[in-house]
């Protein structure tokens, strides 16, 4: 297009090669424009908070102050829950299902009573076997711990569980048994 005007091409090239003076405040104006565009998207308080949070600062701390801060942090970490001699496993509070069985021939009703039901004979009646035999059963969910219990036959006769340890500290003249529920 300009092949026949070499002088014109030379003038353009010379013009383009000439150094250009840029206003030193240009960068500032550009960043201000950008900041204004950003401000339009957020609330003023949020922007101010963000700037306050992200603005670098310098702190001067005396050696004593640094030691006090470290001691405070160590105390907080030491006092966190779960710290200490014992670490309770998560399963400690998980309940387990237990089936209690007793053989009581000729019984009309059998109740399971113990620490888990306030020793209330009406709360956990046992069920006879489906064939009508002498085997009575009850199923309970128990949390980890040690429970004393006994079987009450026909409202008057106490039976300990022959398949469980007997309570050694029986002070009431009627036998009791002990079931221990573990957590691990």
């Amino acid at each position, binding site marked *: 297009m300009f092949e026949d005007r070499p002088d014109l091409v030379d003038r353009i090239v010379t013009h383009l090669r000439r150094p250009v003076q840029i206003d030193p405040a240009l960068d500032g104006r550009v960043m201000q424009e950008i900041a204004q565009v950003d401000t339009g998207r957020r609330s003023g308080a949020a922007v101010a908070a963000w700037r306050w949070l992200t603005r670098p600062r310098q702190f001067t701390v005396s050696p004593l102050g640094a030691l006090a801060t470290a001691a405070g942090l160590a105390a907080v970490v030491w006092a966190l829950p779960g710290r200490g001699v*014992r670490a309770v496993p998560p399963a400690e509070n998980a309940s387990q299902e237990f089936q209690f069985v007793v053989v009581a021939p000729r019984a009309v009703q059998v109740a399971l009573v113990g620490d888990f039901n*306030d020793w209330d004979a009406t709360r956990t009646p046992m069920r006879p076997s489906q064939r009508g035999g002498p085997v009575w059963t009850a199923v309970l969910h128990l949390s980890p711990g040690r429970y004393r219990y006994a079987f009450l036959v026909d409202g008057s006769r106490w039976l300990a569980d022959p398949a469980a340890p007997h309570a050694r500290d029986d002070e009431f003249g009627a036998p009791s048994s002990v079931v*221990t529920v573990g957590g691990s």
Partner: protein
Amino acid sequence: MTSSLPRTPKSVAAAGALAAVLFATAAAQEPQHLNDPRLARLDTAARSLVAVAIDSARAAGLPTEPLVQRALEGATKDAPGTLIVSAVQRLAADLGRARAALGASATSPELEAGAAALRAGAGPAVLAQLRRSRRQTITVPLAVLTDLVASGVPVDSAAAAVLALAASARDADLIDFRRAVERDIALGAAPTAATAAAAAGVFGANALDVNAGARGARPGRP
């Protein structure tokens, strides 16, 4: 400075006076557990004394539910009121001894199991050693110790076996261990020999030195 510092002692004094008044008011009232409807199954005299014992235990930071349950057990078994009161008071004392041995961080089940172990004849030192040797809860080791003694195992042998196992055994392992001891005793083994044999069975023959010479006495199983 002149406005804030002089107020602090006054505020503390006022709070202290208020706390004293509240404490005196609470102390003048009836035992709190008299209002527990479950204790209505006791006769009036026994109920009052049991409520006092329970409130004292609560004030001492001891768990009260085991005491309530012991009283209810006595009531359901138609025990005399005096027997129920003495049983509750004795259990409260045992719970206090258990806490002294196990420390203030002991849980209610641990204290209850610890009280039973003390009643079975285990010394407070055994409880404290068990506390130190096991990171998990020691409710089951204490219960197993008590049950072994109830099965006829001498308390020293039972304590040695449980202490040897408790550091690394799971609760389920300890309960299996107790069952094995009881089964062998039922089959005719001497309680000490049954304990040593079952303990060796949990972790292998070389893992334990509790009455090692008695292992050969373990009876055969069906």
